[in-house]
């Protein structure tokens, strides 16, 4: 022991009890014996760093009053009903343990995959995402909603009056575009009208030779590792999970056990959260009315009872704020009123089935650019509001906000771009190659923005944001059910592929895709 330290201890003892000085030799021997007996603790810096990483790798921040905040997560579960149960398995113990972890590791206030402490844009080399020509209309489609408990409303917008009538038969319709995918029923594909487009906008100058393509980063394992480490060491009921190797949490499902409760499905690999109705807690006409037509009628929405857009948006804003869903990277909310086109076109408005949910979209903004879907509609967070119950019934497309970026060569030949646009742009002619009527519509000056594409490659579902031009359709007729926008992606290899497809006859020459 260092002499000065020993002396310090002794002096401190003498201050307390000066008589101890008479036993100084004995004290020194005792203290030195103790110090020499000190075991080597084998402190391992690797352990310290690993633990620190575990604690902080999820960018766990500390909440102001109730525990952990994890910006990896999107939502404030504490503002959900406390009686949330995990339904991933039937084992109650597992549910309790995971629930405890979740509740303790989510924030009270704004939670989001969006996190300032982690780089949101990671540069990759030019052309890093491979050949974009693979993003042909037949290869690229939004994945179907697969979350457990989802009764997500169809993304199909009817295209004729007859199909409008059939909407009333759909299981769970939603006003507007619905959320999260859907299927196209052949019953909705009615006699088709072909549209030709003529560009009437300003002269098109394409001077940008390269531009950024974005690929969403997801599934890096950070989000679930807390759960993984917990699960990997546990025995749940009849099974010893620690006997399995490298277990990772793919997804979990939680549900609010209360009236109008919600399901929360978290997909750790996709880094998405889907919120939908816990159907056990939402009463419907189907549950209550039997053969009583008056009862069924009481569940129907009247056109006059639909609230103003601003009121609906306020309701959804309040919901998102309460649940801690961060809107930093979304633009101004807009109610999806496309359904009104169908309603206005209906010849039997009294019997027109108005879906009971209205959809509010918060457009995603990446690098200052608004993101659209492949038909030029706003793409982003979608919140469904149930008009019968005056409650939010679902949230779709809640995703991480981290992207790899890569530069791609853009097409600068405006003639090629306009040629594609005038043939209906991306996705034209998917459904029909023969049209019964032909109508010519005008295209206005396009805006340049990003279009959301999916690509399934190497067993991975990739999401890409591609620079594209979005042309507005200037003079849609009253009975026009086609897209109000024509989109043309700008990467050179996609343009070449689309032109080749057209010349090979796979494009029908201006048939508007029916899927919106």
């Amino acid at each position: 022991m260092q002499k000065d330290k020993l002396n310090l201890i002794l002096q401190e003892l003498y201050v307390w009890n000066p008589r101890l000085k008479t036993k100084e030799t004995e004290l020194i021997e005792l203290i030195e014996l103790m110090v020499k007996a000190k075991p080597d603790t084998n402190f391992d810096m690797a352990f310290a760093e690993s633990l620190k990483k575990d604690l902080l790798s999820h960018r766990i921040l500390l909440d102001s009053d109730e525990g952990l905040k994890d910006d990896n997560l999107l939502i404030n579960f504490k503002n959900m009903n406390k009686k949330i149960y995990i339904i991933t398995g039937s084992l109650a113990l597992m549910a309790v343990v995971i629930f405890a972890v979740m509740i303790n590791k989510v924030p009270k206030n704004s939670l989001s995959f969006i996190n300032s402490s982690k780089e949101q844009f990671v540069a990759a080399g030019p052309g890093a995402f491979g050949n974009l020509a693979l993003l042909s209309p037949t290869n690229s489609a939004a994945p179907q909603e697969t979350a457990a408990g989802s009764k997500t409303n169809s993304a199909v917008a009817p295209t004729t009056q007859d199909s409008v009538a059939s909407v009333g038969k759909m299981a769970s319709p939603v006003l507007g575009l619905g959320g999260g995918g859907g299927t196209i029923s052949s019953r909705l594909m009615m006699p088709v009208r072909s549209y030709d487009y003529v560009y009437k906008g300003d002269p098109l100058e394409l001077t940008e030779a390269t531009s950024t393509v974005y690929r969403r980063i997801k599934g890096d394992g950070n989000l679930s590792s807390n759960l993984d480490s917990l699960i990997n060491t546990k025995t749940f009921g009849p099974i010893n999970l620690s006997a399995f190797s490298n277990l990772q949490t793919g997804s979990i499902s939680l549900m609010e056990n209360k009236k109008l409760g919600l399901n929360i499905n978290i997909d750790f690999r996709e880094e998405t959260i889907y919120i939908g109705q816990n159907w056990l807690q939402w009463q419907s006409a189907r549950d209550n009315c039997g053969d009583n037509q008056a009862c069924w009628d009481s569940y129907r929405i009247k056109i006059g009872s639909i609230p103003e857009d601003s009121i609906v948006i306020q309701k959804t804003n309040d919901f998102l704020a309460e649940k801690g869903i961060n809107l930093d990277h979304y633009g101004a909310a807009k109610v999806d009123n496309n359904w009104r086109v169908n309603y206005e076109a209906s010849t039997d408005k009294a019997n027109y089935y108005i879906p009971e949910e209205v959809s509010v979209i918060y457009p995603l903004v990446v690098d200052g650019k608004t993101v659209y879907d492949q038909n030029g509609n706003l793409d982003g967070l979608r919140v469904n509001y149930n008009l019968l119950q005056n409650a939010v019934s679902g949230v779709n497309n809640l995703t991480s906000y981290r992207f790899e970026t890569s530069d791609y060569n853009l097409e600068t030949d405006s003639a090629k771009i306009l040629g594609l646009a005038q043939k209906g742009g991306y996705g034209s002619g998917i459904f029909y190659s023969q049209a019964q009527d032909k109508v010519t519509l005008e295209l206005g000056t396009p805006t340049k923005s990003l279009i959301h594409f999916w690509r399934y490659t190497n067993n991975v579902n990739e999401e890409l944001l591609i620079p594209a031009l979005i042309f507005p359709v200037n003079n849609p007729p009253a009975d026009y059910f086609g897209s109000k926008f024509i989109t043309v992606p700008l990467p050179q290899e996609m343009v070449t592929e689309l032109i080749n497809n057209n010349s090979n006859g796979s494009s029908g020459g201006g048939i508007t895709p029916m899927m919106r």
Partner: protein
Amino acid sequence: MLNHEEELNLALKAKLGDSDAFALLYNANIKKIYDFIYFKTLNKELAEDLTSQVFLKVLKNISKFKSDNFSAWIYTIARHTVIDYYRSRHDTKNIEDCWDLKDPFNLMDNLDDNLNLEKIKVAMKDLSRSDRELLIMRLWLDLPFKEIASSLDKRESAVKVSFGRALGRLRQNISPVLFLLISFSTICKKIN
């Protein structure tokens, strides 16, 4: 090393969600807490496991931190984590660390290499937990009395008094023959 005010300031920042502040607190305390736990368990793997639990508890509960003494708070968590571990694994409710076990050293990593510990282990075992902890904190963790007082949330003068008394009891617990040998050895060294 952080002083009391710096540590408190970081704790308050961490409480408000500052992860950098938490990281600094972690850096300042990880070895101290690990060593503290090791001296109560004498087993590396167990010490690491319990240390992990301590910092997870700190993380989970920092938002509830209301004290003006972070050091006392984290040592309390560490102390209780060790106690909980032993009490959950043994029938008796009186066990607070490995020294209370019938044979505290059968799990020890490097007993064979530590002849000095061999000399005092029985004497240490016979001390009260608080005496033992005080000696460990001052002589093994090398914490100043001021910090020990802070971590125990006691007055510094009271800690010094307790330390002196703990030394006295340790002396009493060491067998007279052994202490004679130790003294003789010390005298020989001085002569040489």
